């Protein structure tokens, strides 16, 4: 039985026919829409490589059934830059050398965007590390990642009372 689902993906409306109810948001993005920036790492919610923003909140796309989120708004790494202008988090990752192989980077970046939007970590490196613990980096670029998230937080002006810390 075919079912139709509708999403707003990177600000554009998309309607997709699904012939199989098992499709996750991750597989929908990668296999049906060719949005392969969102990576399939563990496919079990452990590594964070598939992190997207779902209705503005960061989630693991691999553990979300597409049918469950019919009607949702989705932002992926492909929708982050404005034309050629990088998002401040993307720019900060480059500036602070926050990657080596790059496979986890789209998930790291999307998670960082979600973290900064949540506004709980501010400029406290310990809270940033804790808030980013759902994104594993096999290359161990964590130091650069933390620095990049802090720099992007400053650049975006999303500072909190932790400013002085």
């Amino acid at each position: 039985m075919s079912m139709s689902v509708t999403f707003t993906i990177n600000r554009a409306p998309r309607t997709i026919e699904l012939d199989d109810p098992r499709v996750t948001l991750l597989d929908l993005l990668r296999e049906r829409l060719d949005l392969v920036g969102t990576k399939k790492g563990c496919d079990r919610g452990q590594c964070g490589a598939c992190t997207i923003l779902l209705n503005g909140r960061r989630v693991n796309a691999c553990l979300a059934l597409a049918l469950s989120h019919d009607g949702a708004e989705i932002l992926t790494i492909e929708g982050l830059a404005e034309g050629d202008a990088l998002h401040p988090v993307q720019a900060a990752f480059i500036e602070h050398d926050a990657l080596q192989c790059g496979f986890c980077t789209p998930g790291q970046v999307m998670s960082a965007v979600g973290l900064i939007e949540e506004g709980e970590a501010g400029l406290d490196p310990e809270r940033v590390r804790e808030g980013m613990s759902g994104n594993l980096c096999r290359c161990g670029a964590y130091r650069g990642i933390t620095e990049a998230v802090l720099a992007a937080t400053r650049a975006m002006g999303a500072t909190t009372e932790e400013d002085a810390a």
Partner: protein
Amino acid sequence: MNRFEYVRPRTIAEAVSAAALPGSAYLAAGTNLLDLMKIGVARPARLVDLNHLPGLDAVEHRPDGSVRIGAAVRNAALAADPAFARRFPAVAEALLSGASAQLRNAATAGGNILQRTRCAYFADPDSACNRREPGSGCDARGGENRLHAVLGWSEACIATHPSDFCVPLVALDAVVEIEGPGGAREVPLRDFHRLPGTAPERESALAPGELVVALRLPPGADRFAAHARYVKLRERTSYAFAVVSAAAGLRLEAGRIVEARLALGGVAARPWRAEAAERSLAGAAPDADSFRRAAEIALADARPSGENGFKIELARRIAARALALAAAGTPARLPALPASPFASAPSGGLHG
């Protein structure tokens, strides 16, 4: 993952009706169920998707002082509810010590209490597991079992319940609200999860087709708010299940403990309420001796189920630590590492 029939009910009544057919499973966020389906541990014939049901995602602070948490409230949303976090700080701390930010944004309150054990043999369809396949045996008994149960286990099953959220909830006398084919009913959380006995496959008090619609904290459960903590020992600082954990709440008057609450996580197939330990603290001084004595009582019946005898002393120490931190007072803001035993200790030390 097996193929399944997908059902999208629009009301609770429709959901309960759809799930009455054998082989049905309710789907909330799916952070546990979809994972188990991917590895072949769960193979439901029909998924009844709760994600389009209205009315299950509210946190209601009621005039009588009770709080009703809709089953679809996300872990992160509950911890971020300012009134909830102020009234039930140990619950918020437990929530924020669990999983990752991504999973907390998805996982629901109802799904949390219904999450399955993280026993590696349960998760491996090629292993013997009485919980997954009744009568097949228990490979955990002679296997890698250092993180398994030390309380309430049986020869049939030594798995633990992995929830952090449930530990302070059971300490605060939470109640589970249920709808099902036979109508609405409620069960105290302390009776919701079954100890394995000879039938570990029967994990909860839910009858087939029943749906958890809410969790409720009773009036007055916020009277521990000034002295409430959750402490969780993990093998990594973040993003790991508890080796052992403890939730503690105290009511202090004139330098004595008037009333205490204590529950343990990671030690049994249910969140473990330690009532005898609580009684030992009533009227006692809030000091290291009282807390150590309470911890001894809490673990009095503990015994190793394998290579995990160390967990018994760890659980005593984490229980005493949680009580000492609760006595020192709930912090104005949760620490950067929620529930971590490596957070800075109150002055005077924690173990006397």
